[in-house]
């Protein structure tokens, strides 16, 4: 844990600052809208329920879904993250302002008017000071919510402590996860306490006579000013130099031995990068938010978005032949399962898989339909057998190809056997999926040989080198048999026959951009980045 912190101190500081910036910039916007709106609806009770209703509905939209809605509108980066946080902070601020003002004893406001205060004076001298504890409680709630939700900004490449958290989850790296989670929790607790203190400062300031009131105001003004500075600084911080290339990496790619660290080792490549959610990267490169992205060689969007795959001329990425990994216990229990799975043997070539991915990602066909179309084309589509005698649980990771494969397996198994297939799709990373398989939570899932080798088995360097030394053409078979043997020996898990395609990691760029800069291979990319 401490070693990790020491090695990543600069990154942690940067992420914390971004986190703070996102939290406070959004909070500030929410205050600017929420306070006046709360005051307004306290005067017009008729619109109050409508306004609170809308803010309440916004609050219940899951954060991921909200970010999903916002990306088409605002792109990727701080924009959607700030907007989502702003919307989440609105409700507590509006509601508490409304309640605080509404609950001021009407006798007091009438007394104030009876003394000759104008409506504005009643608001500033009586209503707001008396409502302040409630309003402040709302601001505290909003701050704590935002510190928490701001971790999700990492999904849209807006940075923050979520980068460590999601990277840690994807890589099953507890230290990395805690390095994000603990500071986030500390920030939340710290701000709650800090705001509680600020509240008392304000309060004693306003009752302690004129002099005290002035100094209280000054302190509050200083506090607010500092907030603005921090917010502006942190949001402005992650600006990228237009002359440099900026890479967008998936959280898993950024940390995996065969991902970016592998590239650093084999090519000596150092490229400025941002971590963002896998499914959002194509949008990011299309809109020029990033110039290089990580991805999979069979991804259907490569063609659709006019991207070009950079040649891995030093073979940093091992081959990734896809095959189902099944529990031996399950195979023993349902002997009919293995033959059904084997029917796909070699049927899914690189080009077919790319095509299937393209249909799902770009033509927005459902995985169910894509799978049916494929099975029909290769003559494997069978109407489902009505009777069900048992069930197997199938897992998949969260990306299109895995969803399609899962669908293909489901239709295949239900067509050729009497087993019912229960899908548990959407495991956030290899480790999660593998752990589920080993513990029996799922019976099988489609895996890739390279992933099995580097993420799960993690063999000694000597073993890796001996596999790597083989000529390129022999590597896939050698790795498959090594992985198959080791999985059987160590985990009692059986690798089925390969599906036929090789879905390797790859880096890609916009076609026009790559041509302009003269980059075709990873070696050239490394040189280009160094040269600038």
């Amino acid at each position: 844990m401490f070693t990790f912190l020491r090695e990543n101190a600069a990154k942690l500081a940067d992420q914390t600052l971004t986190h703070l910036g996102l939290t406070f910039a959004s909070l500030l916007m929410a205050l600017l809208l929420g306070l006046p709106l709360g005051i307004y609806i306290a005067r017009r009770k008729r619109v109050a329920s409508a306004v609170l209703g809308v803010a309440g509905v916004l609050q219940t939209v899951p954060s991921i879904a909200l970010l999903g809605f916002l990306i088409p509108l605002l792109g990727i980066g701080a924009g959607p993250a700030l907007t989502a946080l702003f919307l989440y902070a609105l409700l507590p601020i509006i509601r508490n302002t409304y309640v605080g003002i509404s609950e001021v004893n009407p006798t007091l406001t009438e007394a104030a008017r009876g003394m000759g205060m104008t409506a504005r004076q009643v608001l500033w001298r009586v209503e707001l000071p008396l409502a302040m504890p409630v309003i402040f409680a709302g601001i505290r709630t909003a701050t704590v919510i935002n510190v928490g939700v701001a971790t999700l900004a990492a999904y849209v490449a807006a940075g923050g402590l979520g980068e460590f958290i999601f990277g840690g989850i994807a890589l099953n790296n507890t230290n990395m996860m805690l390095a994000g989670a603990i500071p986030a929790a500390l920030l939340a607790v710290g701000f709650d306490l800090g705001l509680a203190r600020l509240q008392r400062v304000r309060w004693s300031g306003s009752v302690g006579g004129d002099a005290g009131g002035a100094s209280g105001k000054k302190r509050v003004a200083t506090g607010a000013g500092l907030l603005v500075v921090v917010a502006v600084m942190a949001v402005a911080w992650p600006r990228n130099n237009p002359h440099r290339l900026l890479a967008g990496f998936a959280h898993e790619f950024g940390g995996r031995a065969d991902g970016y660290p592998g590239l650093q080792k084999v090519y000596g490549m150092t490229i400025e990068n941002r971590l963002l959610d896998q499914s959002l990267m194509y949008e990011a490169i299309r809109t020029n938010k990033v110039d290089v992205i990580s991805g999979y060689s069979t991804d259907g969007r490569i063609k659709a978005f006019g991207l070009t795959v950079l040649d891995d001329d030093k073979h940093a990425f091992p081959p990734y032949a896809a095959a189902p990994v099944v529990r031996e216990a399950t195979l023993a229990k349902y002997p009919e399962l293995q033959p059904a799975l084997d029917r796909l043997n070699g049927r899914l070539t690189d080009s077919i898989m790319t095509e299937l991915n393209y249909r799902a990602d770009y033509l927005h066909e459902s995985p169910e339909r894509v799978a049916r179309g494929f099975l029909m084309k290769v003559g494997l589509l069978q109407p489902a057998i009505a009777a069900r005698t048992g069930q197997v649980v199938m897992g998949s990771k969260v990306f299109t190809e895995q969803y399609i494969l899962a669908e293909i397996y489901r239709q295949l198994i239900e067509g050729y056997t009497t087993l019912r297939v229960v899908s548990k799709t959407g495991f956030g990373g290899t480790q999660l999926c593998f752990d589920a398989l080993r513990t029996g939570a799922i019976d099988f899932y489609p895996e890739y040989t390279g992933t099995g080798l580097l993420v799960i088995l993690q063999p000694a360097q000597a073993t890796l080198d001996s596999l790597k030394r083989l000529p390129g053409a022999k590597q896939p078979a050698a790795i498959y048999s090594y992985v198959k043997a080791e999985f059987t020996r160590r985990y009692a898990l059986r690798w089925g026959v390969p599906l036929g395609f090789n879905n390797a990691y790859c880096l890609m760029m916009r076609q026009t951009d790559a041509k302009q800069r003269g980059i075709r291979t990873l070696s050239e990319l490394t040189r280009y980045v160094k040269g600038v």
Partner: protein
Amino acid sequence: MNPTPAAIDLQSVTKRYQNRAVVDDLTLTVPAGETLILLGTSGCGKTTTLKMINRLIDADGGTVAINGVDVRQQEPHELRRHIGYVIQDAGLFPHYTVAQNIAVVPRLLNWSATQITDRTHELLTLLRLPETVLDRLPDALSGGQRQRIGLARALAADPPIILMDEPFGALDPITRDDIRQEFKQLDVFQRKTIVLVTHDVREAFALGDRIALMDNGRIVQMGQPDDFRQNPTTPFVERFLEASGY
């Protein structure tokens, strides 16, 4: 016609809520320096009448004039700064110290700090309050002290007219009698034009130069305390007095 206009003059004033007249065609004149009591049961319209004088409530019909000037011709907040206002349980601002509470109207009138301090000390002496209360918050005071501060706040800018809505209503009977006695003996209050709302007959008799007994938004009987004792004009007046032990 009287050459000097009355301090307060209500002519055929009416106020309706959902078509029910809470104050119904009420005419009332208060000469300068008089203490007039609006007496009646809850809901008889006495508080509404009072609030129409400083425009906390605007009349639906009729006219209200202060010193001969229609209140509608003045900005409500300007008007109110020159009319003292005392309410039940004082209505002090809980987030203001006693000193700040007393200074509310002078500050609205942009008095200087020394003016305000001098006036505050004058009022403390007048109302027999110790200097030590100045820095306290209202919650730290006794009910009697709060009520005195409420009076001090209404007197701060020395307004010629003071409106009082059940000013002693929240006090226990003994404190109430004491403050009422003090209040009656204070010179300032003798000189001011006061309209005081109460449902307490004893209070009305003790403090009023004249009493207007109200029922259903109208004045049932108007006169000096003795008139009421000697010849109540209607059975309602008789009953009202009897119920209060007279």
